[in-house]
């Protein structure tokens, strides 16, 4: 039988309930509720009555500040109580801990679960309470449910299904495509190649084989577009990936490993290397943002750890593109979630996963545009450190043992890789719910702890993250050159009843597959035991060049590695030639007339989602864990001035460090994918240099999040890739890792199509010999000279926040002078390194004035600025040319000396009084601007 234990705070109110009440007040005009309380519910199965009391007293309940009840409600005078629990089969991370604690106490406990009750005080019916819960999205029906009936058991049982043989050799093209739809996401040509293969080997495929092929050949795993021949305007071009690699390897001074492993690796100091990777998790996040963003973090952390023979993750970055949080609900496409909900849930996910992992989240950004309303971009970056001798991708050898460690396998996450490769439709949310799961950070953390120790004891030959495509992808890839034999019955399962193909394909989180040399396997098992990490021995690598998978004595898959990995036909894809600018709009806004209008305009710009302070979010992300941060996201007298990049010292006590930055601006790509992409890359490197990074010792990571590659989108993607290649040429530094996600188009059955503004995110990471030679953005002294360094393209205002506030898009995006850029970066770097530049901030969204405002804020001072008479004052203040900097130096003489070889302009000086004054135009209290700048996120996150 199941016992229920309810625990709640003794206090009259609790913060979770209070937060809900605030949300209700915001969302509804009238509400009948006086108070909401929350109650934790535990269900315990297979425990004796005396043990129940003991377990509750010792573990579940603390008398000091909590009340408890057994098998019944706890807040007696409540009007309605609604319980929200995970659906059976969805992993509740807390359960493992409950079972462990029981075991530690010598208590027999067969199964457990935990959930929350929302307890309403006020006149409302159960129906109304349920509606409120739904309206406030206190649960996601994909993974959670409202408990109307007490469960009879918490155990999940099931019978293993038979491996099916599919009939594909003699079916029509139409039938082939029906097989592919919603499940395999392959096109007709690819389906026919598979059909022909099985015709050739004269048998029908098993479900396992078809699924293996579909996931290996998915866009997610196969990167078909990046490997395709591209025809642009009738001319054939080399595949994107070839173009990127060719240029990258021309700049290999620091490259240790690029484009081959789970993350790119570059040289560091003292025999160390550092690695980096960016990865998106857009499709799951669109339908379940909390689980989606969590598993996105977990996945990219595993990419870092599963590089070479193992790395330690030292920093994480989060980049989110969403619709504006106040989007009119009528504009929300069917099957899409409200952006405000997505925003708060992805933030919670990063908080709950990154913080638990002990990985500092030091850098990130938000980009708001309403065309992300159907499909948000959720991009997580991670960076690590590893000994150089363990930094090359491992090669498996014959008789190495295949092991899988970490989490157990469940039905969750099946079809993630193929699902994320398809376009999103309103059916997505109902058909593909299996692709959603919740992460368990502690499972991942202990697995990482074990891997580092195993690496240092030389136990690891090779490894692969078991992410998209699960075992099929990880093992299939590791054994590509050798061959491998796998026994699925040896895999550990979360519950019984999984079919063989499900075990093989499941993307259950927190798992890593390793190749362990036979003579090290016992040592390896011991290390796993020490860290409470479970291990399954799944098989052996051999020299058969075949992928053989068994379930007991039944052979469920037998494919030639060559066909699996090279059978996928190279695509030939047509791309539209892109016009110079895709926007023909050449209107310009009216210049603000007076002080009042100027201040209003500036406040509007500062409170824009792309510019406003994200401090309330950063305060929930642990950014000082590991003790490595030497430039925090916010500095200054009140710790509220934002910085451009993160600087960390991954090895405590050493002088050297690592700098991490990124840049993107999706809306520019919609106007002009080439210059928009140049802008993104320049912004990334400018952020990097603005804090003291040396760009010559940096590596780039490129992430393309694009609409589905129809001819139009493929044309813009082609321009973007060209921009990245040109950027590498300009700065003579390589891209060493990246990822593409080309499915950000939404399609509904009434013909409505929505493409996101294409996202190119360039991340930069690299090394600096001395972390002390860095700077922050806060003004340091009054009476300093403020200088703008770099060549501004003042007349190009396309895509700026200022234009968007005037409901304009603009025709021409800011163009960066690539000849001058390296020189500018060099003088900034020298100025910071010799201490002549006291503070520095790069010019980006919101322009010069925004940069200066943020510098004033951190410095708790003001500034007096003169504009350029030859330029429209609004353009002067709000232009967003990247690659330009605002710097603080001591006096004009100093400025002339430092910047004589590059374009620069003296803008004014810092003053003690906390006002920002623009000569001849307006003067405003910094505090007043700060209020506007901080307001949006303070409201959303209730701080």
């Amino acid at each position, binding site marked *: 039988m199941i016992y229920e234990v309810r625990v709640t*705070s003794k206090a009259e109110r*609790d*913060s*979770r309930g209070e*937060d809900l009440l605030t949300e209700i007040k915001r969302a509804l005009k009238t509400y009948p509720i006086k108070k909401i309380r929350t109650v934790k519910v535990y269900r315990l199965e297979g425990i004796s009555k005396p043990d129940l009391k003991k377990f509750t007293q*010792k*573990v*579940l309940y*603390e*008398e*000091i*500040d909590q009340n408890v009840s057994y098998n019944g409600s706890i807040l007696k005078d409540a009007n309605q109580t609604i319980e929200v629990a995970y659906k059976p089969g969805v992993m509740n*991370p*807390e359960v*493992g*801990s*409950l079972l*462990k*604690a029981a075991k*530690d*106490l*010598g208590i027999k406990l067969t199964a457990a679960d935990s959930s929350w009750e929302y307890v309403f005080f006020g006149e409302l019916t159960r129906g109304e309470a349920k509606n409120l819960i739904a309206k406030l999205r206190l649960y996601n029906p994909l993974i959670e449910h409202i408990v109307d009936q007490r469960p009879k058991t918490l155990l999940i049982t099931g019978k293993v299904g038979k491996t099916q043989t599919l009939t594909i050799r003699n079916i029509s093209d139409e039938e082939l495509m029906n097989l592919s739809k919603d499940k395999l996401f392959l096109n007709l040509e690819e389906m026919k190649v598979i059909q022909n293969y099985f015709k050739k080997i004269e048998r029908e495929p098993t479900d396992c084989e078809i699924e293996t092929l579909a996931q290996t050949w998915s866009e997610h795993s196969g990167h078909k577009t990046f490997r395709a021949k591209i025809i642009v305007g009738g001319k054939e071009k080399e595949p994107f990936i070839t173009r990127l690699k060719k240029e990258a390897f021309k700049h290999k001074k620091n490259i240790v490993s690029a484009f081959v492993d789970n993350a790119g690796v570059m040289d560091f100091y003292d025999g160390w290397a550092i690695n980096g990777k960016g990865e998106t998790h857009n499709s799951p996040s669109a339908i379940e943002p909390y689980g989606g963003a969590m598993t996105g973090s977990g996945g990219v952390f595993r990419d870092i750890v599963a590089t070479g023979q193992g790395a330690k993750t030292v920093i994480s970055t989060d980049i989110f593109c969403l619709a504006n949080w106040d989007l009119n609900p009528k504009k929300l496409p069917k099957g899409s979630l409200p952006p405000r909900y997505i925003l708060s849930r992805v933030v919670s996910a990063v*908080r709950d996963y990154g*913080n*638990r992992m*002990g990985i500092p989240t030091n850098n990130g950004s938000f980009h708001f545009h309403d065309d992300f309303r159907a499909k948000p971009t959720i991009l997580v970056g991670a960076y690590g450190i590893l000994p150089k001798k363990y930094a090359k991708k491992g090669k498996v050898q014959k008789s190495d043992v295949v092991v899988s460690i970490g989490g157990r396998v469940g039905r969750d996450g099946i079809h993630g890789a193929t699902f994320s490769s398809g376009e999103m439709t309103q059916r997505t949310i109902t058909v593909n719910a299996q692709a959603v799961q919740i992460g*368990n*950070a*502690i499972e991942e*953390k*202990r697995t990482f*702890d074990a891997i580092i120790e195993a690496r240092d004891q030389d136990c690891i030959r090779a490894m692969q993250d078991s992410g998209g495509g699960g075992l099929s992808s990880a093992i299939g890839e590791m054994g590509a050159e050798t061959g491998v034999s796998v026994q699925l019955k040896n895999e550990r399962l979360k519950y019984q009843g999984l079919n063989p193909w499900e075990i093989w394909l499941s993307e259950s989180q927190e798992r890593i597959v390793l190749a362990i040399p036979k003579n090290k396997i016992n040592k390896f098992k011991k290390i796993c035991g*020490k*860290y*409470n990490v479970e291990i399954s021995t799944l098989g052996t690598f051999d020299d058969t060049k075949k992928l053989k998978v068994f379930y007991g004595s039944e052979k469920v898959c037998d494919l030639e590695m060559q066909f699996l990995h090279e059978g996928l036909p190279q695509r030939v894809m047509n791309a539209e030639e892109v016009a110079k600018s895709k926007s023909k709009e050449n209107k310009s806004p009216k210049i603000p007339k007076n002080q009042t209008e100027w201040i209003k305009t500036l406040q509007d710009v500062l409170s824009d989602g792309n510019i406003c302070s994200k401090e309330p979010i*950063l*305060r*929930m992300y*642990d*950014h*000082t*864990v*590991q*003790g*490595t*941060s*030497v430039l*925090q996201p*916010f*500095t*200054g*007298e009140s*710790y509220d001035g934002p910085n451009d990049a993160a600087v960390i010292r991954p090895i*405590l*006590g050493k002088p050297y460090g690592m700098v991490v930055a990124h840049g993107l601006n999706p809306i520019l790509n919609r106007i002009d994918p080439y210059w928009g992409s140049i802008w993104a890359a320049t912004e990334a490197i400018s952020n990097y240099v603005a804090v003291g990074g040396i760009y010559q010792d940096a590596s780039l990571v490129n992430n393309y999040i694009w609409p589905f590659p129809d001819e139009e989108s493929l044309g813009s993607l082609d321009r973007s890739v060209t921009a990245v290649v040109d950027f590498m040429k300009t700065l003579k530094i390589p891209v060493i890792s990246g990822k593409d996600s080309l499915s950000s188009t939404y399609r509904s059955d009434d013909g409505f199509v929505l493409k996101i503004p294409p996202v190119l995110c360039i991340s930069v990471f690299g090394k600096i010999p001395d*972390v002390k030679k860095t700077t*922050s953005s*806060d003004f*340091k002294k009054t009476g300093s000279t403020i200088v703008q360094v770099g060549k501004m393209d003042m007349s190009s205002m396309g895509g700026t926040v200022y234009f968007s506030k005037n409901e304009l898009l603009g025709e021409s995006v800011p163009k960066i002078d690539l000849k001058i850029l390296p020189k500018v970066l060099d003088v900034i770097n020298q100025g910071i390194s010799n201490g002549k530049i006291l503070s520095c901030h790069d010019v980006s969204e919101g322009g010069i004035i925004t940069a200066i405002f943020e510098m004033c804020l951190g410095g708790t001072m003001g500034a007096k600025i003169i504009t350029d008479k030859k330029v429209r004052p609004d353009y002067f203040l709000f232009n967003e040319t990247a690659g330009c900097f605002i710097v603080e130096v001591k006096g004009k003489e100093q400025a002339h000396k430092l910047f004589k070889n590059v374009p620069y302009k003296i803008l004014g000086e810092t003053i003690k009084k906390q006002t920002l004054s623009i000569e001849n135009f307006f003067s405003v209290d910094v505090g007043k601007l700060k209020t506007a700048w901080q307001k949006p996120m303070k409201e959303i996150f209730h*701080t």
Partner: protein
Amino acid sequence: MKPKVCILRADGINCDEETFYAFEKFGGEPEYVHINQLRSKIKHLKNYQILAIPGGFAYGDDVVSGKILATELVSFLKDQIQEFVSRKKLILGICNGFQVLVRTGLLPFNHLGEMDATLAQNESGHFECRFVKIKIQQSCAIFLKPYVEQVIDISVNHGEGKFFSDNKTISKIEKENLVFCRYVDQNGRPTQKYPPNPNGALNAIAGITDPTGRILGLMPHPEKIIELTQHPNWRRGNVSAKGGLIFESMVKFAQQS
């Protein structure tokens, strides 16, 4: 002889490396010890002079923070810990480690297996990562005597840090001089205001000791402010990194006793 420091590791502890570094920097000889090694007696607490329980999310902070690890310690290591304490050795719990010490009952009154106080959810309702100020108080921790009245800029990184108990217990804690640091405002005065007091802790209590002065626990992270560059505003001058005094004084005290 350098005192040996047992840096405890368990699933989800994640501030072990910086805690190790801090003890090493200030003259200790730290060693990572996984709780399973203590349970299986491969390693034994008696070989160490200091036990440090670092921050993190032991077992995910499931149920409430530090609970599962506290249960494990009391179930399996009660004797080892009791012996350790009775031999007048030192214990330090930082953040999650403090939560564990309170939930084992070692703090505030050295009642292993019985809780007298708790660390409840922050009043803000969520995790807080920010720099605050704490002031070292006159307390039973005699090795901190030279530093009384010193104000330290320090990072807090927690979601459940509100020190809480009934009035009687709080008075007893105060009367017995068990509070060794409190959250203070710009003027150095103990404060209940958010965010200088980041969690709403009663009497602005940030850290406490037991009546012997040898078991210490605190929510803020001294190990993350032992070098100037760890201060957010080290580039502005007029700031210092004083977290090291906790480690230095403990190591010295362990050496003498």
